[in-house]
C-alpha cells in the first residue's frame, strides 16, 4: 500500500475521530459532574443537525447568500438552541432522579433519546427520509497521489479539534471550569462552600450538548446528509469511546474517540468485507472493558460502602 493511500485512510480516520471525540467529551463531562450517563446525547446531536438544517432553510428564505454567513448562522443557532435543550433535559429529567438507582437515570435518558428521535421522525416534514444537508464549505481539493485533501474536510477537522481544545481550556483555566471540577470531585463539599450546584450542573450539560450540536452540524456538512437515526449509533460510539478512554477524564474521551475511529478504519482495511468494521470495533471495546473494567485511563475513586 503506497503512502498516499495510507494517508487517505488516516485522513478518513481523523474526520471520524474528531466527530466521535466531540461526542465522547460530552459524555465524560456529564459523567464527571453528575455520575450520569446521558444516553440521549446522540439524539441531541441529531436534533442539533436538524436545527442547523432549519436555520439554513430559514436564512436562505430570508435571502442570505454568502456561504460563510450561512455556515456561521447554522452553527450558532444549532449550538445555542441545543445548549438550551441539554440544560432543559438536565433540569427536568436528570436532576429529579439524582437519588434514584443509576439504572433509572440510564433508562430515563435512553427513553428521552427515543422521544427526541421519534419526535423528529414523526413531526418534521417527511422526517423518516434522509435529508440533504447544504454544501456550504468550499469544495476544492488538493491531491497528492491517491490522497485527496479537500478543504472542507480540513476545515471541519480543524474546527472540531479547536472546539475540543476550547472546552478543555474552559474546564482547566477558567473559574467556571474550576467550579465544574469542584462539583465533579465532591458535590456536597462544593455546595457547602457556597457553589450553586444546580446552576453548575445545568451549565455543564449546556456545554456538553452544545459540543454535540457542533458534532451534528459537522457530520451534516461532511456527509451532506442527515437522518433521524444518525444519533443512535453516534451516541453509542461516543459512549463507548468515553468509556474505553476512562469516564470522567477529558483526555480519555479524546483518546477513546480517535481510538474507535482507528479501529473502524483498521477493520475496513483488514477485512475482505469492509462492513465487518463495526463488529470488529465493538468486539474490541468489549475486550478492552474486560481487561480494564474502568477504561484505559482508569477511574480513580473510592467507593463508600
Amino acid at each position, binding site marked *: 500500500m503506497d503512502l498516499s493511500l495510507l494517508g487517505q485512510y488516516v485522513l478518513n480516520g481523523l*474526520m471520524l475521530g474528531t466527530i466521535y471525540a466531540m461526542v465522547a467529551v460530552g459524555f465524560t463531562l456529564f459523567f464527571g459532574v453528575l455520575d450520569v450517563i446521558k444516553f440521549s446525547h446522540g439524539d441531541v446531536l441529531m436534533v442539533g443537525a436538524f436545527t442547523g438544517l432549519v436555520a439554513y432553510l430559514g436564512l436562505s428564505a430570508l435571502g442570505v447568500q454568502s456561504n460563510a454567513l450561512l455556515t456561521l448562522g447554522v452553527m450558532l443557532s444549532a449550538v445555542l438552541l441545543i445548549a438550551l435543550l441539554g440544560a432543559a433535559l438536565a433540569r427536568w429529567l436528570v436532576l429529579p432522579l439524582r437519588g434514584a438507582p443509576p439504572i433509572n437515570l440510564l433508562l430515563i435518558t435512553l427513553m428521552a433519546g427515543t422521544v427526541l428521535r421519534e419526535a423528529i421522525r414523526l413531526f418534521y416534514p417527511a422526517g*423518516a*427520509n434522509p435529508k440533504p444537508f447544504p454544501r456550504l464549505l468550499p469544495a476544492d481539493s488538493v491531491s497528492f497521489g491517491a490522497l485527496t485533501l*479537500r478543504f472542507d*474536510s480540513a476545515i471541519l477537522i480543524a474546527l472540531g479539534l479547536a472546539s475540543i481544545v476550547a472546552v478543555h481550556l474552559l474546564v482547566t483555566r477558567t473559574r467556571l471550569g474550576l467550579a465544574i471540577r469542584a462539583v465533579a470531585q465532591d458535590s456536597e463539599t462544593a455546595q457547602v462552600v457556597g457553589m450553586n450546584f444546580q446552576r453548575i450542573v445545568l451549565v455543564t450539560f449546556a456545554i456538553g450538548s452544545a459540543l454535540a450540536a457542533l458534532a451534528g452540524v459537522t457530520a451534516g456538512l461532511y456527509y451532506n*446528509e442527515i437522518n433521524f*437515526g*444518525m444519533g443512535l449509533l453516534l451516541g453509542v460510539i461516543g459512549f463507548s469511546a468515553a468509556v474505553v478512554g476512562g469516564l470522567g477524564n477529558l483526555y480519555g474521551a479524546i483518546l477513546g474517540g480517535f481510538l474507535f475511529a482507528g479501529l473502524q478504519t483498521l477493520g475496513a482495511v483488514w477485512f475482505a468485507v*469492509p462492513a465487518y468494521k463495526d463488529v470488529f470495533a465493538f468486539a474490541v471495546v468489549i475486550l478492552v472493558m474486560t481487561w480494564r473494567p474502568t477504561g484505559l485511563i482508569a477511574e480513580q475513586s473510592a467507593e463508600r460502602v
Partner: protein
Amino acid sequence: MLPRPLRAALCCALLLAAGAVGAKEAVKLVFIGPLTGGVSANGLGGRNAADLAVRLRNADAKARYRYELVALDDECKPNIGVQVATKASSDRSIVAGVTHYCSTVAMATVDVYHRFGLPVVVWGAVLPDITYAHDYAEVHRVNGTMINQNETAARFMTGLKYQRWAVIHDTTDYGKGHNKYFSEYLAKNGGRIVGTFGVTADQQDFSAELTKIKDLKPEVVYFGGITPLGVRIRTQMDKLGVKAVFQGTSGIVSDAYIEGLGPLAEGSLAFREGAPIEKLPGGKLFLEQYNAQKYNDPPEAYGAFAFAAANLVMDAIEKVGPDRKKVRSELNRTRDYQSVVGTITFDDRRQNAVPLITKFVVQDGRWIVWEDSEYANGKRKLIQP
C-alpha cells in the same frame, strides 16, 4: 356483539334489501408499500396510484362492488413487511393485494401470502426470484424483472467503449441480484470488473470502499441498490475524488436521487424496464387524472404499474366475486389484458413480460430518456473512457 350466525343472517338480509335499493357490497383491497423511510416517494406514489384506481372504479356506476383500499406501510424492511402481510392476510375481509416496491420485502412475504391464500399482484419489485423461485399461485407481477435491465445496461455501456467497472451493491437480495445479473452480462459483452464491494443497506460511510476503488481506477462505478445509498455513494465519490461515470439501476430512478445530490447528479445513468409514463399507451390519461386528484406526491417511476395492478385485481373481482380462491384462479388466467402500461400477459410463473428497457440520464436536474438527451447527440459528454 351478536353471535356469528345471527350476524351473517342479518348481513344477508341487509344485502338483499340493499341489492333491491342498489347499494353495493364493500370489498377490501390491501396496498402494501414503503410509505416511510428512504424510498417512501415510490411507496407513496404507488399508493396514490392505487387509490386513484379505486376512486375511479367507485365512481363508475357499472361496477358491481364498492372498493375500499387499505394501505399498509412495509417500511422497506423484510420483517415489517412480513408483519403487515400477516396482518392483511389474516384479515378475512381483505380479498386481494397490490404489493411491494422493495424486492427484499417481496421476497420475504411470498410465503405468507401463499400460507393464507391471498392473491397479490406485485407492482414495483424487480428481483426475478419473487416469481421464479417458487410455484405459488398467489403471487403475480405486472412490472418486469432486473434481468432485462442489466442485459441492456451491459450492452449499452460496452457499446460506449467503457471497459473497466467497479461494482458496489447492497447486501440485500436486491443488490445481490443486480450484481449477479450485471456481472454475467458484462462478462458476455467483454467488460471487466476490477472490484466488487458489498455494503449494508443503511451504511453511512463509504470512505473505506471508495478509497480502495480509487486505487483500482475504474471507468464506471456500477451501483446495485436504491436511492438513499446511491445519493451517499455519489456524494462521497466526489469528496474522495473518484472520477468515474456513475451507473445505477431502476432503484435510483427517482426524484429523490436528484434532490439529494443537486448538481452532482448530472451525468448519472440508469436503466429501467417500461417506458416513462408520458410514453405509455394510457400514460397521458393516467397523469391527467392523477394530477386532478391533487396528491401530495408524484406517481414516481412505478405509479403506473400500481395503477394497472389495482385495476387488474378489481376487474378479476368484478368477474368472479370477492372470493380469494376464485380471484387467484382468474388472475392466473390473465392474457392480453389492456392496461395503462401496455398489454399484460402472465407466463406460467405469473410474470408479465415487459420487453422495453429505457435508458435514463440525469440532465439539468431531471431524469431524461437517453435518446432525447444532449449526451446522445454529442452536445454533452460523459466522463470519457
